[in-house]
């Protein structure tokens, strides 16, 4: 018996999805972005705003809080909320917590949303870092300019290169694959094809990362409606069951006895995730991996059990992840690298479209079971992931 076995497997479902346009400048507040996405998601679910009794969001204080959204939408019966500080590492914990709430009856209709003006207002490039307000280990990194996520992840990527001989081109193949998947996605911000040569020629940000290893800064919002699996049966779309979820972690470099950056921090999460879902890697039809940068995708393919450590480069060359023909299509919409960066909630949106069979030219052949992940540990120490299954 593992802790994952206690998860209310498949008892909650995603019944609606909504999104705004993804852009470099929304021209509106995160309050407006959130409200629009929530309205769209509720309409998609065939429900009314008055049905909402739970709201969840997360972010480094750059989303809009559930209490404000509730007031703005005139919701007077809130019985569940999460307003989680931190970024992509906690994104899929929203899905897990919403599932806990609706499956045990604490709430009937929980909307998860993430709204951000990540390009036009609150950029994550470190320029606005306030020395008086930064926590713990970042305090010691900041004076040397070690302040942005690209640098942290590049440090990990280097460790993997040293241990397994991973090459720049291997990261490049992930960038090219993501861009290729974005070409026919009308939501995607980046729809110009790139080649491996383009990747290699793109400017350095933090060697070993080029610019094309990095995701996009985006303005936009996504909202997801979670209800009980029972209730979802009576709503318009194929219910997307929250089959399993796990969140937690603990592996960082903050002197906790962990001494190998090349090992995937997805491993401890993966064990509990699969246990919660009663499934294993072989049951997954496609994946939406948190791709703030290219390397974390490679690390997750290993950590979630789809490859031996060091085995991903050969699989990339063999086309194992190609959307039309591969055994594990991933980031079928172009991911955070090429669709946009809504802190991972756009991964859920895409997974739901795929499971419903509504992904148009992007539709993968086998689309019943999806793995959707949040950012790997390393930086905050948290990871999170969910497995979604079409009913």
């Amino acid at each position, binding site marked *: 018996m593992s802790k994952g076995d206690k998860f209310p497997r498949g008892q909650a479902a995603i019944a609606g999805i909504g999104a705004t346009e993804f852009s470099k400048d929304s021209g509106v507040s995160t309050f407006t972005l959130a409200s629009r996405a929530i309205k769209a998601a509720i309409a998609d679910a065939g429900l009314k705003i008055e049905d909402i009794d739970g709201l969840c969001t997360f972010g480094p204080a750059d989303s809009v809080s559930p209490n404000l959204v509730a007031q703005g939408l005139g919701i007077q019966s809130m019985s569940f909320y999460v307003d989680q500080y931190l970024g992509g590492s906690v994104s899929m914990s929203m899905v897990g917590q919403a599932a806990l709430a609706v499956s045990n009856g604490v709430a009937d209709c929980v909307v998860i949303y993430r709204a951000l003006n990540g390009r036009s207002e609150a950029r994550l*490039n*470190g*320029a606005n*870092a306030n*020395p*008086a307000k930064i926590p*713990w*280990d970042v*305090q*010691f*990194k*900041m*004076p*040397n*300019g*070690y*302040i*942005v996520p690209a*640098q942290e992840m*590049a*440090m*990990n990527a*280097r*460790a993997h290169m*040293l241990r397994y001989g991973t090459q720049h081109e291997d990261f490049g193949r992930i960038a090219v694959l993501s861009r290729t998947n974005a070409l026919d996605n009308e939501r995607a911000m980046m729809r110009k094809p790139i080649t491996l040569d383009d990747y290699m020629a793109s*400017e*350095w*940000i*933090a*060697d*070993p*990362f080029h610019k094309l290893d990095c995701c996009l800064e985006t303005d936009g919002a996504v909202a997801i409606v979670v209800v009980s699996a029972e209730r979802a049966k009576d709503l318009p779309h194929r219910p997307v069951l929250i089959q399993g979820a796990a969140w937690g972690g603990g592996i960082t*470099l*903050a*002197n*906790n*006895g*962990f*001494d190998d*950056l090349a090992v995937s921090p997805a491993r401890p999460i993966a064990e509990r995730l699969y246990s919660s879902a009663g499934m294993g890697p072989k049951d997954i039809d496609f994946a939406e991996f948190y791709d703030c940068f290219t390397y974390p995708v490679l690390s997750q393919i290993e950590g979630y059990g789809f490859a031996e450590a060091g085995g991903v480069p050969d699989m990339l060359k063999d086309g194992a992840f190609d959307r039309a023909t591969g055994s594990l299509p991933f980031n079928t919409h172009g991911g955070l690298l090429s669709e946009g960066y809504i802190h991972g909630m756009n991964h859920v949106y895409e997974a739901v479209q795929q499971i419903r069979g509504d992904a148009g030219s992007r539709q993968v052949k086998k689309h019943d079971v999806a793995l959707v992940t949040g950012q790997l540990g390393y930086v905050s120490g948290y990871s999170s992931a969910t497995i979604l299954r079409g009913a």
Partner: protein
Amino acid sequence: MMSQRKVIPVPSRDTVPYWGALANGHLEVQHCQDCGKWTWPPRPLCSGCHGENMAFEQVKGTGEIFSWIVVHRSTTPDMMPYLPYTLALVRLDEQADIYIPGRLITDREAHRGMRVRAVPEKITDTVGDLAWTPEA
């Protein structure tokens, strides 16, 4: 030497001794007086025995590079003059799971296992910063 900085660390109540030691030219790390484990970044309880009996003690200030990146883009004004520069993650000689990052002062290319020593730099009377440089 004293340097002019635009971004000056603001010590928390738990980290005043660390920053002060750097201002005085030393790298000091928490050392458990009961179980002997070294701890960094500073924290309330020892990672080994969960006791509070820790003291900041000077370490040798030497270690080896475990990983590194070369920063080409930065938003930190104080680092702009150095671009591109190497940021190294240094494993302290005292204990294998302590990694302390810092700018690497050298013209040479970094490599894993490169021996380095700490270079404390005074920013104010109470706050210093840490960089690394090759031992030889």
